[in-house]
């Protein structure tokens, strides 16, 4: 048999049937659901009198729309003040009951952002195909699973048939060589990659991330990288299985046990691209060249090193880019040539499926420890990715560190990453955010987002503007 990429292997092992015109029926091992993109799918099933094909292959949790204040959360679903949000969360509860789907409801201690709890529980496993009505499903690729976002019609399709009609994507390898300098994180790596290949650079591809830098990252760091594959246009991002993957999974609640564990591990170890596998495109970056990144515009490709300046649209590669840059600068209220470190900030958000895991919170806490939030920062939120991440952080005393520095310690959820709940920016406010999208209005009407790593966001909170994290001593 000819050599295969990891993506080829995952595709082939889930191929139910080749259909006409180059499409295929692909089997789906695991389907995550949340409250925002599932109601219309359940309604569709009801109208057609259909049931779930394999209810046990689904798992649900409300995350996009849930409040993060303890006062609202202490009363479960009934405590949600916004009546529209409350209906949507209740609707998920009811739908899961009706269709026999396991749900971590809003008051379950294991509740959290779907892309955080999947791996945390060991539901996400190497070799799986995983989908969810959310584009950041690419996160799960960090464990060697083929995972991507789908729309609501496809949510309904997967519920009803356990399959999707798919067209195979092309293979791209993004190789990050060498080693990262101290203070440079997984978030900086993926922002640098998107800055290089652009927001549509991966369209039509599945990206496998490889090279010494990716291998050196923790599983959580790899999740940050794969999470933002979609911001480079690729529906799915992948990292090959190694010993880190296997030790991450061992002992997690839903991971295989006993003899099944041995069997699974033997298969998982084969989930790497063959040595001479052919990729349709290869992109290389040098880890040593990557410095902490800050986005200055309204697309994740609009990034600059923290040591740099807001770029001049006149220097853009072509007219279309020039127009985009001008539009972005106007929206962001920035002028070309402004040093990134001079951008004044109003809020800080540490959270989201990109950066709300325990390592992210540790990195942020280390920076704010012994310091205070700067006077020009109106609000700095820390929103853990799950109830278990929150509990772990509290056990380590991180909550006390954040609170002592003047940051708010919240309940888990998507929060200000997409601002569907009350956590929003005011028009014109600049926010240092560990989330994944800096689109116009993403964090609130007229809000201005700057994407950064957790350590950079924490430093921005205590200094009131961006600083090069490499120059900030830990106290």
């Amino acid at each position, binding site marked *: 048999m000819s050599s295969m990429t990891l993506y080829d292997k995952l595709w082939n092992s889930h191929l139910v049937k080749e*259909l006409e015109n180059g499409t295929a029926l692909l089997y789906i091992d695991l389907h995550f659901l949340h409250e925002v993109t599932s109601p219309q799918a359940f309604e569709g099933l009801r109208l057609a009198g259909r049931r779930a094909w394999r209810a046990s292959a689904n798992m649900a949790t409300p995350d996009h729309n849930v409040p993060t204040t303890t006062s609202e959360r202490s009363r479960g679903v009934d405590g949600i003040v916004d009546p*529209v*949000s409350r209906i949507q969360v209740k609707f998920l509860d009811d739908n899961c009951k009706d269709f026999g789907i396991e749900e971590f409801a809003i008051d379950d201690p294991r509740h959290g952002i779907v892309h955080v709890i999947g791996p945390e529980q060991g539901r996400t496993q190497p070799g799986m195909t995983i989908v969810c009505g959310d584009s950041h499903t690419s996160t799960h690729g960090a464990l060697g699973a083929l995972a991507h976002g789908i*729309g609501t*019609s496809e949510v309904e399709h997967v519920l009803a048939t356990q399959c999707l*009609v798919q067209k195979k*994507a092309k293979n791209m390898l993004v190789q990050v060589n060498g080693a990262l300098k101290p203070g440079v994180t997984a978030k900086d790596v993926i922002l640098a990659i998107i800055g290089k290949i652009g927001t549509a650079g991966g369209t039509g591809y599945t990206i496998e991330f490889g090279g010494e830098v990716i291998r050196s990252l923790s599983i959580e760091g790899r999740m940050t990288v794969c999470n933002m594959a979609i911001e480079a246009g690729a529906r799915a991002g992948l990292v090959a299985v190694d010993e880190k993957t296997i030790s991450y999974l061992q002992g997690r609640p839903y991971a295989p046990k006993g003899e099944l*564990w041995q069997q699974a591990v033997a298969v998982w170890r084969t989930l790497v691209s063959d040595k001479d596998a052919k990729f349709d495109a290869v992109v290389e970056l040098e880890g040593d060249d990557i410095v902490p990144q800050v986005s200055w515009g309204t697309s994740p490709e609009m990034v600059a090193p923290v040591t740099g300046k807001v770029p001049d649209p006149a220097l853009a590669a072509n007219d279309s880019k020039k127009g985009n840059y001008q539009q972005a600068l106007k929206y962001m209220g920035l002028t070309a040539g402004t040093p990134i470190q001079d951008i004044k900030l109003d809020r800080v958000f540490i959270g989201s499926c990109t950066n709300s895991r325990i390592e992210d919170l540790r990195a942020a806490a280390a920076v704010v420890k012994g310091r205070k939030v700067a006077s020009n920062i109106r609000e700095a939120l820390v929103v853990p990715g799950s109830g278990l991440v929150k509990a772990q952080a509290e056990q380590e005393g991180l909550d006390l560190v954040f609170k002592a520095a003047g940051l708010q310690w919240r309940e888990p959820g998507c929060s200000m990453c997409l601002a*569907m709940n009350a956590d929003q920016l005011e028009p014109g406010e600049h926010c240092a955010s560990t989330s994944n999208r800096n689109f116009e*209005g993403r964090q609130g009407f007229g809000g201005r987002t700057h994407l950064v790593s957790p350590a950079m966001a924490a430093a921005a909170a205590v200094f009131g503007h961006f600083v090069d994290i490499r120059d900030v001593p830990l106290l």
Partner: protein
Amino acid sequence: MPLDRANVDTDYIIPKQFLKSIKRTGFGKNLFDEARYLDKGLPDQECTGRPLNPDFVSNQPRYQGASILLARENFGCGSSREHAPWALDDFGIRCVIAPSYADIFFNNCVKNGILLIVLDEKMVDQLFQETAATPGYTLNVDLAAQTIGKPDGSTIKFDVEASRKHILLNGLDDIGLTMQHADAIRAFEKSYKEKAPWLFA
């Protein structure tokens, strides 16, 4: 209706506050909400009477009733929200013409009977120029013939995958089509269970 902007994301097409609905309809009045109105839109809000942005294309009298959207590269990037095609459809857009689209958005449109046409950048640019220069400029899309008819009587050919064309022309139910392969799915599950029993434990 020409929307001269690259990398239009799905947050731009339909902002998140409208995603709280548990229905599939009624999103049209909030299509491009942040660009189209001058105030901040709220869910379940009556939109007649909201201050309009006179510069935004959908508010210009000449584009009222448009069913074809002319757009730039990487249209529909970002979130997987199907509310984006639902909003386009509810507004009355049946077809989009652009140089390229984001993958998830592309699939979501097919599921909702919206035809996405890919033309090369030069051709799209020319259509933008001609639309701007000629009030009342109208294109006529014929999916069966795979042609776009221009006001001067000339036509542009476009490609569409045969399977997508078939689904669009016949308004087929995707799930029903897949259910025809139910035996193949069961057979796959059976052999797969032997190879990966831990997934069925």
